[in-house]
């Protein structure tokens, strides 16, 4: 296959920009129609019968809660309540454990913040480590192999070539 570096670089650049735009554009879009909203909200609620399953995934025949809760969810969506109001209604009726994930209020915010905070702090730490290491002079242990020169260095170069030869 013949390579066209300039064309490939141009395509790569444009595709990268397109991906970024798509990422930003689509990442924040959500569902709109009623069945999709029921599906979305039903996966943000738990069945409260004690099975520890997502409401729309509860598969217990004769479960005294899930059927009723699903009907209540459909009714709330039909009524036109927004997502927050619908979820709040369920919390008031069944308690906070009905929500499948912590809310973004009060102490529960910590649940969401911590993983991202860890990621950001970790990234910062890695970057700092890399920069510190780049500046740090090379230190060797007293019992470590000292730097090599001359014939020995040639030997190592030959060995490296041999090892990396495909």
């Amino acid at each position, binding site marked *: 296959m013949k390579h066209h570096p300039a064309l490939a670089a141009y395509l790569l650049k444009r595709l990268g920009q397109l991906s970024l735009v798509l990422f930003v554009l689509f990442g924040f879009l959500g569902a709109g129609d009623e069945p999709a909203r029921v599906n979305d909200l039903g996966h943000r609620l738990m069945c409260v019968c004690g099975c520890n399953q997502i409401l729309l995934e509860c598969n217990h025949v004769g479960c005294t809660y899930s059927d009723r809760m699903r009907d209540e969810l459909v009714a709330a969506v039909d009524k036109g309540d927004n997502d927050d109001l619908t979820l709040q209604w369920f919390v008031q009726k069944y308690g906070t454990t009905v929500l499948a*994930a912590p809310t973004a209020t009060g102490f529960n915010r910590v649940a969401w913040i911590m993983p991202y905070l860890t990621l950001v702090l970790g990234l910062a730490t890695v970057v700092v480590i890399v920069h510190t290491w780049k500046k740090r002079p090379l230190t060797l242990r007293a019992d470590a192999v000292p730097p090599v020169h001359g014939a020995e260095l040639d030997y190592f170069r030959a060995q490296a070539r041999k*090892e990396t030869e495909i």
Partner: protein
Amino acid sequence: MSLIGSFVLLLALALSGYSFLAGILALVRKGPGSERIGETARRAGIATFALVLLAAVVLMIAAFSNDFSIAYIFHHSNRDLPGPYKFAMLWSGQEGSLLFWSLLLGAYGLVLRLRYKTDSRLFAHASMVIAGVQLFFLSVLNFAAPPFAILQGSSPADGAGLNPLLQYPEMVIHPPMLYLGYVGFTIPFAFALGALIMRYPGEKWIAITRRWTMVTWGFLTCGVFLGAHWAYSVLGWGGYWAWDPVENASLMPWLTGTAFLHSVMMQEKRGMMKTWNVWLIFSTFMLTVFGTLLTRSGLVSSVHAFAQSSIGTWFVIFLGITFLVCLFFYVKNRDHLRSENKLESLISRESSFLFNNLLLLVACFTVLWGTLFPKISEWVQGAKVTVGAPFFNRVNIPVALLLLLLTAIGPLLAWRRTSWESLKRNFKWPAIGAVAVGALVVLLGMKPWQDQSYFYSLMTIMLSVLVAFTVASEFIRGGRVISQKTNQNLFASMVQLTRRNTRRYGGYIVHFGVVVIMIGFAGSAFNQDKEKEMAYGDKMSIGAYTLVCRSYTQDDNPNYGSEWAVMDVFKGGKQIATLTPERRFYKASQQTSTMVANRSTLKEDLYVVYEGQNPDTGRPIIKVHLNPLVMWIWIGVWIMIVGTVIGLIPSTVALRVAAPARLQTEPVGASR
């Protein structure tokens, strides 16, 4: 039986105690007698394994002879339980699974102690650490969770039966695989701690433990995915991963173990990240213990925490002691872990490993945090909250996508530093290919703007393709060079390439397996399901399929009664299959269980559940799930296993360059 079993376990405890103490004495004491003491410690360790094996055999005999005077047998078996499940009963409850843990630890210890001549001093240290861990588990077995405890009152005629969810063929192999992974991490932990204690010079201990770690990691991978497959096949909710604490407990050490397998390469190749690696393997071991604590102590509630008791305190104490011991020797010998090289560039293989480790650890922390948050919330605000799949998916999916991106970039980076030009040259065609595939997927009908899960799914597919292309380009590039030299065809050249560096190319195959699994995960965004009461002749359509209920049947055997539906499946007006979803009622335990009927293809799974009868109408309820790409997950796991096995095979190219004299010096302790 009970007396024999209890006595054998007590003897095993005494021997493991001796092995531990004599092991310490032999290592601390200087003098001619120390070697003999060390040898007795080694033999005591081997004898401990023999005794624990005997205890397990005694428990098996008790199960097969229906000795219900033993409480464990009564609670986990019954007369009509099929033979394979009587065997699986060993790991289906608290006491038995701890005995099984101890047995596997003994078996790993046996292999280590038989291979002690590789490096007797290092192995003596590792053997001592293993004896210490074994001492803990045998103490728990003797004093907190005895498997041979006698049932109070008169011996019952029959047992309470095994949990129906565990009566599935995969349960005979899933727990052993998982436990082989869990317990196996004790070995690299023992070597790491041993090497730190004795200030082991060089990186030879890493080379010794690498194979142990890979085998262990392979077992844990199998165990985790077998568990997922079991959940998919038995629980009947249509999914394979629910972020349950038990599942999370197995995932956490897998994540840190994966991080260790990557970062350890930096230590081997460049003598860097020694402190990090030591703590990574310490953490992995502690996470296996912590996972056990988590699921058995009642600390968090779980759908399938099969055993809960008050043994949590034992595990907390053990974890505390382990941490303090690790910390003590780290502080004492930390100068020994100083890096021999420095990191030269942000765009280098070393940096990619750093970022890889960061992301894996963030994923691990997220899982741990989400698992513990309900408890933390209860302590802080007095109210429990649920942390379920929406939390874990939302937080972990971006991390997983970043990891995929790094999996694509990492192998293209050179050690020490890589130029932008080189990176662009290697990366551009895979990147263009990935974006082209993404565009094609959108043209074929995926609408990522409709739902965030669709968007994530598209990103997963694109990044997976990117990784697959970079892996393929690595094979093709290397294969071409060999092909030009040897005139072999490209495929034969790529096979030869792999044989020359099994570790590197085996690793790439593992990466490819991960890619296939991720594509399988991406399919979950498009899952559909339908539920309907179905009488004879009723139809239900989902996707391109139409299901027609042909009949309902019942059956009965000594172990369980069952009812199932016979469903004809049509596609395009043509019958393509007959499925028989089943529901069982186990007599001894008085519990029900589902047997899912699944028609699995590369494109999608038609997953049919017989949920039972509507109590009001008496009509059977059938739930159908259409789950795209699930088979890719199981295929990906097989590819990962193949890659791991290839990575374990020694490379065919041996160095024949004569080394200068000073390089031939054996590491201290190697000749002892």
